[in-house]
């Protein structure tokens, strides 16, 4: 657990899980780096993890991925439910650990603590105070079609803090079980045991979930584009919404480079039937090898341009094929 941040300055967050035991205040400019919403604890926490695991050889929680999840606040029967949508977890991401981070408000009345503090200033003394209902964190997994109530996945008892504290709890079994059952909508409720606990405002100390995972596909070819490239070469209004990213109704254009003859080309056999890449193209033959996530960054010509280029390119392409044969071969072919 850790002390609540002093607002409006950058929050001082320390987290006791996943080896993040190096509390240090973030400089204000760093905290503002992620842009809007950077002052919230999720962004600050993730930025701290980024700084930590950007060092060489460091692996977040033993894996390669940390996902954060912000909740949506819903009020049901005057109780606050935080709904987490974990569906962005990828199938290839093996969950190593999941942590729930929340801000626990201190409880009154303060007068009850006075005799206790006189005897001993420790947490166990406060825990023994009579008449206080236990607070619990309740986690339920929700099916997409059901209402807010769902299967109870876990309950965590909370000791009341002396002051407002950000706390973290390991909810790995809860998240793993929910994922195993395919129920990646998770609700979290702080059950204070009181009849009318009051509803928190949506922005005040919203909890969040961090999932440490090992993405088994991150070493696969093209993984960086699978997860990071989202450029849509066909913006809204393009008349081919159902087309695959690189598909086109136009005939494929063979763009041969200057032929260097059948030898000394240093090309893999069989690939010479594919269109040659444009100069400085970042993809080259990968267009053919990794088709789905890779999308061209080059601006797409208008339909008129493509129509104009298409037929004109074909004779040139056919002519370029002839260049691949030397004169002797051509003479033999003619004789035959």
């Amino acid at each position, binding site marked *: 657990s850790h002390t609540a941040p002093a607002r409006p300055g950058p929050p001082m967050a320390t987290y006791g899980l996943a080896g993040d035991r190096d509390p240090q205040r973030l400089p204000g400019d760093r905290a503002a780096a*992620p842009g809007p919403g950077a002052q919230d604890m999720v962004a600050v926490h993730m930025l701290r993890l*980024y700084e930590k695991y*950007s060092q*060489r050889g460091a692996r977040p929680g033993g894996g*390669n*991925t940390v996902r954060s999840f912000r909740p949506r606040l819903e009020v049901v029967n005057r109780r606050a439910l935080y709904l987490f949508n974990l569906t962005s977890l990828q199938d290839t991401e093996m969950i190593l650990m999941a942590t729930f981070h929340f801000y626990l408000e201190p409880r009154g009345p303060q007068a009850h603590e006075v005799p206790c503090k006189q005897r001993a200033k420790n947490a166990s003394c406060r825990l023994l105070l009579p008449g206080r209902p236990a607070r619990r964190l309740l986690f339920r997994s929700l099916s997409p079609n059901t209402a807010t109530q769902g299967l109870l996945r876990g309950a965590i008892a909370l000791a009341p803090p002396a002051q407002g504290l950000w706390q973290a709890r390991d909810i790995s079994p809860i998240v793993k079980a929910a994922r195993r059952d395919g129920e990646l909508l998770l609700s979290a409720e702080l059950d204070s045991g009181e009849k009318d606990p009051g509803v928190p405002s949506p922005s005040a100390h919203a909890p969040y979930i961090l999932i440490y995972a090992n*993405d088994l596909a991150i070493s696969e070819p093209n993984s*960086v584009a699978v997860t990071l*490239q989202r450029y849509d070469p066909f913006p809204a209004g393009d008349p081919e919404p159902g087309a695959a990213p690189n598909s086109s109704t136009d005939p494929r254009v063979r763009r041969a480079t200057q032929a260097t003859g059948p030898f*000394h080309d240093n090309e893999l056999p069989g690939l010479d039937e594919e269109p040659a890449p444009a100069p400085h193209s970042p993809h080259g033959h990968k267009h053919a090898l990794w088709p789905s996530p890779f999308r061209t960054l080059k601006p797409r010509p208008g339909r008129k341009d493509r129509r104009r280029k298409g037929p004109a390119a074909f004779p040139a392409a056919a002519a370029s094929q002839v260049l691949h044969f030397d004169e002797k071969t051509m003479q033999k072919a003619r004789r035959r």
Partner: protein
Amino acid sequence: QWDEPRVCSRRYLKVDFADIGWNEWIISPKSFDAYYCAGACEFPMPKVVRPSNHATIQSIVRAVGIVPGIPEPCCVPDKMSPLGVLFLDENRNVVLKVYPNMSVETCACR
């Protein structure tokens, strides 16, 4: 980069995510030093290009010329380092991924 050595070596390349249009969802880093490998792997290859045994043999075979069509070995990344990337996923949640082999540390003829 005319001053670069002709032999296979690591060359400087800074990649700005804005240049490839990924800056809208990548929070950090904004850019990184990717480097690249370029240059010749000609016979005889110096030790500095760290040729594999296979590359050495291929280079000799090419130099002797007994087998037609054998190219020079390729100048490629040898040792590479990972890069942590902080980005927003499709649901606007912040994600940290450490991608392997994002930056070239050394080049070699292979």
